[in-house]
């Protein structure tokens, strides 16, 4: 898989200074690493080792807490609800009355994690007592994924299906972490890793094994346990994410706005929340192309945008198009000064298309 193309010859994309400031802020945000896998696959144990302290209780039976998000900011701890609301949860978040409904618990004060990254521990999949869709929420917010699979029962069909259902964007930065490596003899571990290499090399950027309990043992425990290698890999992926974001950001230029989109849809510039039932980027592109084709050639781009938004609304009466991650960008394009209709339309289409494939798409979600 290749990184999104940033064609240097392509003209700069004009956006308002406010929009550029927002994009810049998003581009400089800490890289996020999600821990995923079946329940009891060693995610929480691994997180504790990476954080250097007990963050999450490790248990035999699956955890009932929402995703745990270790954030770089100072805090305070909050519950992040599916609608984007944040409830203060300082003190004992585990006893918060709304815990069951929360999408994530955000814990502050984790600025010193490897690579300055933020880590998100997900509830395990395949737990028959938990809803299956936690990964959908997390994957839109993560840049890198660690898929944890326990060495003695590594890589089963349920894991394969769940991983292949993740977006191509996330899988490009996926690391298969074979946990509980200490439960196998070294020779057996090699044979398991051999099989995994055969079966999964095409699905992951990297495959490595970790024996978390060894990390704290002796002077060379960190290296021997495989944690050191994992941290290096995370650092390398995080650098790649940052480079990619910088390249994407470099395509934009701030210009003072002259055009103002009059559509009522533009009135509300609130931060987009859960993009629940919106069409895929591919579908949105098809609708966009239809809107372009149906609009007379000399019309202003704002008309195309309005028709596009109206068509989107018709296709998804239940959904709010303003929640589409690219809506804010689309709006900022129409606000900018630009003489050439054709170029503007192309840029707007480009924004929609980008969201299908690049890490950029998550920038619009808080």
């Amino acid at each position, binding site marked *: 898989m290749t990184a999104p193309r940033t064609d240097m010859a392509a003209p700069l994309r004009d956006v308002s200074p406010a929009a550029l400031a927002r994009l810049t802020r998003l581009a400089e945000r800490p890289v996020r690493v999600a821990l995923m896998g*079946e*329940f*009891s*696959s060693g995610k929480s144990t691994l997180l504790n080792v990476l954080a250097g302290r007990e963050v999450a209780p490790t248990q*035999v*039976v699956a955890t009932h807490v929402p995703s745990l998000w270790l954030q770089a900011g100072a805090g305070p701890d909050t519950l992040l609800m599916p609608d984007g609301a944040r409830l203060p949860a300082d003190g004992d978040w585990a006893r918060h009355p709304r815990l069951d409904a929360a999408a994530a618990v955000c814990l502050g004060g984790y600025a010193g994690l490897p690579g300055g990254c933020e880590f998100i521990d997900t509830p395990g*999949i*395949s*737990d*028959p*007592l938990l809803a*299956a*869709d936690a990964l*959908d929420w997390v994957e839109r917010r993560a840049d890198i994924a660690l898929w944890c699979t*326990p060495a*003695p*029962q*590594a*890589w*089963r*069909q*349920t894991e*394969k*299906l769940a991983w292949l*259902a993740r977006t191509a964007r996330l899988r490009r930065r996926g690391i298969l972490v074979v946990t509980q490596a200490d*439960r*196998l003899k070294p020779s*057996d*571990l090699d*044979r*398991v890793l*051999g*099989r995994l290499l055969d*079966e999964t090399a095409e699905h992951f950027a990297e495959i490595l094994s970790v024996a978390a309990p060894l990390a704290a043992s002796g002077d060379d425990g960190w290296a021997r346990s495989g944690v050191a290698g994992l941290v290096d890999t995370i650092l390398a992926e995080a650098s790649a994410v940052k480079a990619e974001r910088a390249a994407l950001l470099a395509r934009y230029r701030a210009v003072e706005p002259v055009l103002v989109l009059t559509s009522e849809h533009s009135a509300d510039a609130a931060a987009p929340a859960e993009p*629940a*039932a919106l069409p895929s980027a591919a*579908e949105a592109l098809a609708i966009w192309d239809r809107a372009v084709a149906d609009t007379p050639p000399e019309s202003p781009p704002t008309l195309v945008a309005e028709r596009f938004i109206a068509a989107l609304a018709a296709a*998804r*009466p*239940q*959904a709010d198009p303003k929640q589409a991650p690219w809506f804010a960008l689309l709006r900022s394009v129409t606000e900018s000064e630009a003489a050439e209709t054709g170029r503007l339309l192309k840029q707007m289409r480009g924004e929609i298309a980008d969201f299908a494939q690049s890490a950029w798409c998550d920038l619009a979600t808080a």
Partner: protein
Amino acid sequence: MSHNDLTGCAETVAGTREAAGRASFEGLAERIAQQRQTLQGLADIISDEAVAAALRALAERTARFAPRVSLVGQVKAGKTMLTNALAGAPGLLPVDVNPWTSAITSLHFNQSWRTPKALFRFFGDEDWQQLIDEGGRLGALARRADFAGEAETVKTQVEGLKQAAKDRLGDKFEALIGRSHGFDSASRALIQRYVCAGQSDGAQTPGVAGRYSEITKSADLVLEIPAYAVPLTICDTPGVNDTFLVREQLTLESLENTDICVIVLSAHQALSSADIGLLRLLIGLKAQQIVLFVNRIDELADPVHQTREIETRMRDTLRRYAVAEDAAIVFGSAACAVAALSADPEARAEQGFLRLGDWRVPNRATPALSPEDAWEAAGLPALLGAIAARIEGGPSVHPLDAAAAEGLDLARRYHLTAAQEVAVAIDAAALADRLDPIVATLQRTLQTTFNTAYRTLRVDLERRVSSFAAGECERLAEAMLAGQRQASWSVETDELRRLLADQYNEIYAEARRKVFELLDEAIEAIEECYCAAIGSAPVLRRPMLPDVPVPVSVSGSMAVDADMPWWRNWLGRRRAVEAQTEALRQMIVGEAVHMIGELTERQIATFTQQVATVCRDFLSGHTLTLLDLADTQDGARRMEMLARAGVSAEDVADLRLERAIEALELLVPAEGESRSAAA
């Protein structure tokens, strides 16, 4: 090598297994021994050669009663290691860190009549062709879901297998297809050649491990394990939730004839959604046939508390999903059981095993675990106990009950001819005239009953499927219109399975009741014949009818199952609501046609045949007895018969006969009903 090599490794602790096995299967062994002796004893005192031969055959059938226990579960849950532990032979079947069990391996304990002692069957041309053309049933499913890609994956896997086998076996490959290899004895090396996947170790030299692994479909090994006291078959199956899809198919196919199904789970992840999926697939089995074995508890830091937590959680989950709610849950460790069988005390010194010892054998003599302690700590006695209880108390003993009932009927008939004073002169020809229509009527009405049941079943099942499909299409349409996230929508296939299984069981139960009525009518007519012949009517009992076959075909995977690899993609396809729901309807109906076909064509045919045979044997037996009565009015001739049988005094023989009849009456469940029908 003699086949004793297989069990020899465990001889050092034979006492352990001896005690465990005996305690668990004692009840069953006693029942078998008693029934066998009674039937054999009867045969010895009966002068009529035909009756005696029939009784001896029943005695043999009793002695050869071998319940079948299948171990199923996810890949690497420890099924093979548990199989080895149950066989008392740690290295019997190869255990590997990567999944490899592709063949169904059956260990037949204490079944000396079976030959050869080791039999390996290879995939036949038909098997291969079906696997390659369609990617097997899974490929067919993928095609029905219009996902050629998945079918390709299975096909690629199968072709890879076939190619590996061809490369290794060369010219011999074609010659082996569809054949089997039998041996008078088996050794571990031999077993490894057939059922061990050796590919990951690189270069192969001919004749070593894994030589035939790709083409071996099943392995049958005969072992003498006196500890079990009864004949028993343990069946190791390939794991489910395997990325290698072909193996899973073989497992489901093997469950049709199983008496007990032990689902092996890992304590680290007891009851994952994949396990729930497996339990749903087993909906056709009765809950009392299922035992959940939570393996690997030696890897828990605090087994006492953690097992309690795990059990609570498992019960919650089973209740929530309404599957196997009454199934037994047994905690144990195959690794610890294998250590119990080791001659090396060091093997039992592992921390995890000692923790289990402290929990289960707190008052043991020494801190170290003796083989007996380790066996107990491993939970094997508990597992064997659960298996034995479920065999004895469940439908599995039906063949034993049926043999006892048949023996009883034979004995009673003989008793009549041998001991009854004949009061009325009988004309054999007139009697035959009376009997013939009874037989003819029963045959005819049986046929009608089954034809009706067949038609009703077909129509009812089809109606249920189409109303189910309509309901699901409506649900999908609603979900699509509401703009719901479709990714999590799925067809309630277990609901469909339950519907079909319920309907099937209901109609079969109805057919059974009808057959009982018809039999009762025939019995009444026969009793009248007896009255006419000998002046009094003996109390005749209905013969045991076979159990309704378990509707295993509803257990198969369906193209619309949510865990099918293509399902999310299928849902994600952009179609208009009407097109999408119509496609869904066609898929559901298409899948159900296959199941209905299996239920009605194959399963009903088997059952009809069995019932007809039982009824025919019952009637013809009494017909012969009555005709014999007509022939043996001559008292002198009767004495002569008794003398020929070596019975010195008539009354002694009668006494023994009566006692045998009483003994058999105790063995046959009341009212000719089977245990399962009452359960």
